């Protein structure tokens, strides 16, 4: 059984936000609008968090870190959900079942990476964007929590494709939209249980680290970076 994982090379990442846009389009994430954004209620499954790492001449040395859901092996969000709306699947993907979610937001509080977001209102798209919604992903109603899914609808699609071609799933068959869109090729996606996969190789690099490793959540998003890191701005 696969264990899906993402590697983000921060030394390659330029902070262009192509992943953010690709994610928004792929997963029917509604634009917040000015009033909601001012209230801090934007939804973004993939966000860029600014970190400061000392000074660069007279200016602060800023680094933007892409933060999707970590799909932890021991996800704290699952333990607090009173209705089992969020569960970890056989392949290590942490799923959110929207019709089950009662919107209590315990999970948004429990998540140390703050990647879970609440739908404060009914999603709306400016015309004619509504026609461009993906039929593979549901449109979340008001009052439920949502988060990055590692584009697991793409996994289903990939499985359908390989079963039609009568072959096993290979590396590159299933890749989330953010990884696919990265122009700097800073993101790699694959199976962490496959000893020959790129993610396994990169996860053993001396540059590899995970966010808030000390919490024991065992995140499956692995970052690569040479330098020392300052705090989040």
């Amino acid at each position: 059984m696969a264990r899906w994982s993402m590697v983000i090379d921060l030394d390659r990442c330029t902070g262009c936000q192509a992943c953010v846009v690709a994610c928004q389009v792929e997963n029917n994430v509604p634009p917040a609008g000015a009033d909601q954004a001012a209230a801090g209620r934007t939804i973004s499954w993939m966000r860029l968090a600014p970190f400061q790492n000392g000074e660069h001449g007279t200016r602060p040395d800023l680094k933007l870190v892409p933060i999707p859901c970590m799909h932890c092996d021991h996800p704290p969000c699952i333990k607090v959900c009173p209705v089992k709306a969020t569960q970890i699947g056989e392949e290590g993907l942490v799923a959110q079942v929207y019709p089950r979610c009662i919107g209590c937001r315990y999970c948004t509080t429990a998540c140390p990476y703050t990647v879970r977001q609440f739908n404060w209102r009914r999603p709306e798209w400016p015309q004619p964007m509504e026609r461009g919604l993906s039929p593979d992903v549901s449109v979340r109603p008001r009052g439920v929590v949502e988060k990055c899914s590692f584009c697991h609808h793409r996994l289903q699609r990939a499985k359908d494709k390989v079963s039609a071609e009568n072959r096993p799933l290979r590396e590159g068959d299933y890749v989330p939209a953010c990884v696919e869109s990265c122009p700097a090729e800073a993101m790699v996606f694959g199976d962490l249980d496959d000893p020959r996969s790129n993610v396994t190789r990169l996860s053993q690099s001396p540059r590899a680290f995970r966010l808030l490793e000390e919490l024991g959540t065992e995140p499956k998003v692995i970052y690569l970076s040479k330098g020392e890191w300052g705090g989040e701005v």
Partner: protein
Amino acid sequence: MNARDEQKSAVPEAGPTHKWHHPGRWGAVIIGFLAFTVISATAAVTLQDRIFRRPVEQPIKFNHKLHVEDNQLGCSTCHEYYEKETFSGLPDPDVCAFCHSEKQGDSEEEARLVKMIADGEALEWKSLFRQPPHVFYSHRRHVLVAKLECKTCHGDIASTTAPPTRVTKLRMQDCIDCHHQKNVSTDCTTCHR
């Protein structure tokens, strides 16, 4: 002794002799009301489809038995897409017109169909099997990959002589039972996105 003390002493103390075993008239009313609520709520839930939903009316009373059993037509003749797509599809008048541009038998329904085709009327078939809207089901995956027969979910619809008038609602428990039996994934992400 002032007025308040007098009042106090006049109230008899509720001791262990107070009788609780008999509900009294108001108790009976409350119990009766609760029983009525429970019974009527149960009846409303179980019978809601029959009471509140009008029977489904199809444009033509299609005879599945005549087509599938007697004339040996495959399901894919009319439901074209179940081996290729997530949906199965309902036939356009063009599909019917292959055979029914002229009258084949002597049923009234067929005569009506022939006229509808000649007049260029659209056939607005109503779907009879319904899943919750947030479920992502794929006909292709179940028919082609898992090799399920249509009747596993659709029952004996192929041997009916007239379309059912009630919508069949497919429930998650039915999916889960089958997935457990066949030892396939019950991962949430398989159906819920």
